[in-house]
């Protein structure tokens, strides 16, 4: 009986220790999680944030501001056809931070000659990103721009898109496309795509 009591006491101690270890482990895990988790900032409010460099941020599209850009858009003249399809890329790395962004695939044909067709390749970052300069106007967005195998100035080319919803019943929404680049001389950069376009939602 005495032995039995001792065993019970021993088991109690063991169980108590296990519980303590479990609680301690959960506490440490929670602590780690509390310090390691990302600080979520609505994507369109990023411009207003003064970042703390020691934080990891997730610029999340909590309000669906990117959704209006998703889909296929088309620009067409007598000699040119340009078609681009934007899709969402969720929780994409952004240096030490993360963000939701747009990625794209596109095809450009001029005088019947296909200049670019990234639909058939793995490329979807030539035109990508998503930054709202004005938190209250998500109809204007900045993306980062390059063209396949054109290395000229890829480091700082920007694209500004303006979403214009249709004002007529059954009318198509449009996208005003403006490529921005600092140009040191009157000689234009050797990009193939038009600098300015108005694209129609397909």
């Amino acid at each position, binding site marked *: 009986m005495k032995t039995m009591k001792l065993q019970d006491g021993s088991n109690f101690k063991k169980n108590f220790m296990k519980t303590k270890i479990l609680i301690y482990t959960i506490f440490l895990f929670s602590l780690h999680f509390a310090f390691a988790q990302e600080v979520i900032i609505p994507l369109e409010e*990023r*411009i207003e944030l*003064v*970042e703390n*460099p020691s934080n990891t941020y997730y610029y999340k599209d909590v309000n669906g501001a990117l959704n209006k850009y998703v889909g296929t858009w088309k620009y067409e003249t007598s000699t040119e056809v340009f078609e681009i399809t934007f899709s969402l890329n969720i929780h*994409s*790395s*952004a*240096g*030490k*931070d993360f963000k939701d962004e747009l990625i794209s695939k596109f095809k450009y044909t001029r005088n019947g000659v296909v200049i670019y067709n990234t639909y058939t390749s793995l*490329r979807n*970052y*030539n035109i*990508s*990103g998503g*930054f709202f*300069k004005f938190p209250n106007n998500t109809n204007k967005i900045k993306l*980062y721009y*390059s063209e396949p195998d054109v*290395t*000229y*100035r*890829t*480091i*700082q080319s*920007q694209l500004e898109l303006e979403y214009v919803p249709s004002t007529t019943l059954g009318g198509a929404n449009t996208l005003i496309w403006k490529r*921005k*680049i*600092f*140009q*040191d*001389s*009157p000689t234009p950069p050797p990009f193939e795509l038009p600098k300015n376009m108005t694209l129609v939602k397909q």
Partner: protein
Amino acid sequence: MMLFWGCQQDDAIITESNQKQTFQKTKTVVSIDQIFGLETIVGKVQTMRRSQNQSGTLSKNNTYLENLDLENIVSIADSDGNQSYTIDIVNPQNGINFEKLRLVKYMDGYIASIQRFEPNQAWYDSGENMNTFTGQIQNMTLNGTVTWSATLNNGLVVNNNNGTTAKSGSPCIINIYWEDEEGVQYEDDPTDGDNYTSAQITMVVDIDCSGSGSSSGGGSGYNSGGGYPNGGLGSSNGTFVGGSGGSTSGGSNNNPPDGSDTGCTNCDTGTSFDLNEQRTKDRLLAMSNDVKIKARLQDCKEKAEDANHIEEGGGAFRKKSDGTYFERLPSVIQGTETGFDPGYISGESVFVHLHSQKAYDYSEGLPQLKDVAPIPSKVDIVKFISLMYERNNDTNEPSYSDDDDEIVSMLVTDQGTYALTVGNKANMLAADVKLNSENRDQKVINEFVSEYEIKIKEACNNDDACLLRTFLNFIKTHTIDGNTLGIDIYQAVYENNEITGWIKL
């Protein structure tokens, strides 16, 4: 292939992919007789301290270094060529406090310092695990000047200034050279060579705590044919070769303290980092005092400060065997472009250019004058990374110019003169693969571009102080595949329009 350094321009250099290098650090425990020359050096340090004690120049609290644990010396070496030795100072009167003599490889010699650890009782009672050191650390020169101090909690720096306290005082530098019986001096042991015939060679140890470059010291002779026992201590006057040993003062810094022998993770790069920083400052000062580079920096400064000057300019520099530099002028200077064709010539290691305050933008109709940011641009960063790659793959670069410290991109603006230097070679080479090589990653490039634009340009508009602050945050925290860019940045200190030093930002 032309290479552009500029604030807006980008002609990406296509380079072949290269192998990643990994940083390695090894820690071993050795006895003094296992390290060539160490006994002589330690003997010289002890003699110096003994002399200072007798002359009454030391305070009571300074350790006299009479009792050292010479059987358990911690040797730490890394793949970047950094080397340190840490020797426990035995002093029963210290109580729970303890001290260490530190010898850290610096150019041809060592920097010597004493570290005093004052732990709290709880840490001491818990078993003295250096990974979790809690208490104070002081770093002192051999003559007792505190150069920095730090408070650590559980191995992490916790005191104000976000790191160590401000540095002051000059480090004591141990210079080693060799002298034969005819009085000829050698930087390296000449008996290593096959053709040396003299029978007697002396290893000379100078200790310089003045920071001015002058030194006094003594030598311990040994016979080249029969080992190197401690010989009679002599006296000689020497000159420190290749380093100013100048003041490290200049403000606080965020560097962790010297804790490599403690194993504390937050202090992992402490010793080599501090040493690298001092060495880099010395190199930068030597560069900016070179006749050609100095003239180019001055020219750039005058142009950068001239609000009516609206284009860049600069030069590429290659070190010659006599230590001076040869300058190559850019082939294109236009607006925000400073172009070199070819982009790199073997041996070039220093690029200097300026950012004017404004430049013309021709992108929309009539040219418009626009502000130019007085900070290194995205292109400057990428080109500096590319330069690292070029240098790393340059098999023809001369040995007198093959240190990573030689690789520098200097930028002159109306707000200051900055130098990008190599902080982590492996990270820079890895970044080059993603940003510049044939296998460059458009997603990584977009991340780099967009984060630079958003975190710096968009956040600051044209506020210069904001631009510099956010740039520093960016250069220190932006990661590619989890690694930082590996770039350090220094700013020149001017006195009477002359560069007199560099501080790490």
